[in-house]
């Protein structure tokens, strides 16, 4: 179960990483074509931010797996491994689950309204808006799933079935 979720989210993380390169090339290409060829297309401009949404919403579950979401470690940093595991179990159940479930639920309604109307961007030649709005509930749902996986791993570690590295280093900035 936990392994399956990890694999699913790893897959989405690969998609998110590829979007980094694509959106970057598209943005540079847009700027270049506007000056070199005086061509500018709303669709190409819009695809940039739609990809950007994909980068962070689809990448976040994998970041959770890697334990790279920023913590305030002034107290956390000095605790024992067991205490850290307990803090995470508590946090996942009381913070992560309700927050992601709520956002996924509200995000779904937001997407549905747009989908039913077949909402298009108001710019000339713009893209449909509902696919990118679908990423919003999808991202939070995946985060919820990853939360389940992390919870399983931590409970297993607390029972001593599995060793788990709880080392937390602040991500590079």
């Amino acid at each position: 179960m936990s392994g399956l979720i990890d694999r699913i989210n790893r897959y989405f993380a690969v998609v998110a990483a590829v979007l980094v390169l694509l959106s970057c090339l598209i943005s540079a290409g847009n700027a270049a074509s506007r000056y070199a060829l005086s061509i500018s297309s709303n669709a190409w401009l819009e695809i940039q931010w739609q990809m950007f949404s994909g980068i962070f919403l689809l990448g976040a579950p994998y970041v959770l797996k890697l334990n790279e979401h920023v913590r305030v470690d002034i107290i956390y940093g000095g605790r024992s491994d067991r205490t850290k595991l307990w803090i995470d179990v508590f946090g996942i159940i009381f913070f992560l689950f309700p927050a992601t479930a709520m956002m996924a639920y509200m995000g779904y309604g937001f997407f549905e309204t747009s989908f039913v109307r077949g909402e298009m961007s108001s710019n000339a030649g713009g893209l449909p808006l509902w696919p990118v709005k679908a990423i919003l509930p999808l991202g939070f749902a995946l985060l919820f799933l990853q939360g389940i996986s992390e919870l399983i791993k931590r409970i297993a570690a607390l029972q001593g079935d599995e060793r788990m590295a709880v080392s937390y280093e602040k991500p590079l900035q």
Partner: protein
Amino acid sequence: MLEYGYMAPAMFAGLVVFMLIGFPVAFSLAALGLTFGFIAIEVGYFDLSFMQAMPYRVFGIMSNDLLLSIPFFTFMGVILERSGLAEDLLEGVGQAFGSVPGGLAYAVIFVGAILGAITGTVAASVIAMGMISLPIMLKYGYDMKIGTGVIAASGTITQVIPPSLVLIILADQLGVPVGDMYLGAFGPSLLQVALFTAFIFLVATFQPHKVPALPPEARTLHGWALASKVAWGMIPSLVLIFLVLGTIFMGLATPTEAGAMGAVGAMVLAVLHRRFSTALLWSAMDQTMRITAMVLFILIGATVFSLVFQGVNGGRWIEHLLSGIPGGQLGFLIFVNVFIFFLAFFLDFFEIVFIVVPMLVPAAEALDINLVWFGVLLCVNMQTSFMHPPFGFALFYLRGIAPPEVKSRDIYLGSIPWIGLQLILVAVLIFWPESVTYWLGQEVVLDAATVGSTLDAIPMPELDMPTLDLGN
């Protein structure tokens, strides 16, 4: 204190407790916001439709063209970090300055500033410069407190010098154009380089044994060989700086496009240096995706929090508290800076900018404070958060790569004078606002006209956000 109800103070207290628990900030903030949101509905501050603004807020982040520059600038920085540009620069410049006392330290400061203008990550600068200069400094008898201090401090210049991520995020939160933020930060970053250089000059004059010149045998390159080494490092950097900052200042590109072009430029540079590979590209993409997701999720969490916090009159409460500070503008600025200086001991700039800054903006506006000036001031102040022993990032990275002969004690003690210098800069900026606004006044006319037309071409997604009554 309770004129605006007990919810806002309770939420603020909850913020402190939830954050201290140590669970990732993004989720703690979101959970805190939602919990208080539903309590507030029960108590009658607002109804359920208020909470339904949440997806619109998140969608506003998704479709924000400025935030899109975060992955681009990060991507550019990570590629440059891995293509060995810092090494090339430092070797050349270090040898060029090597013959005078303190020469290596000057080289670190200048290279730190150049790296800052092209990359934007403190970690990259500190690690690269530490790996190269520390062993040389150790070998020729530099005082390690000075050596580690100058490397850590020069790495943090990155924070202030455009195109820093901090400035982008601050511009977004303050609602000012990022081009203005960059122009405003220009003077202070030069002042900072000058202050650092002056400090090394004083040390070199009065205690030359602490920063000895390199002996001739350490300076292997002379004449043309040296010149070409320096040029090989400098010219591509200058081209990149122009590509990124030049196009923004001349109004040719939006910051987002400039970031994308910079990233493409960085890839070209890596190819020219024969260090480009698919492994490098992949690791840079992966790293960028992770940093972007991490930053944006703090912003999402903070957005959920602030929406509810404003809904329960938190904005008015904070403004009311801050308006009680005596001394008008000056009193407010001194209070805010002292407050942020201490917050920076245990919070990162992301958390400070996303959570604290929105609370301060209404009060700053009420006092008629120029928001660009205010933002640059906060940026310089938050720079110290990288230098605070023992949690400061810059010190932490340096510890990670320093040879074992370098004591942690030296790294910690060494940071203190530089924190002092950064605080001097904060004071200078408070009492001399022209150091920020001078550049603004000159360029702003050209900027507004040309960038304005460029910006018109950018689609603004349709958003029917419910308007918030912020009480001003």
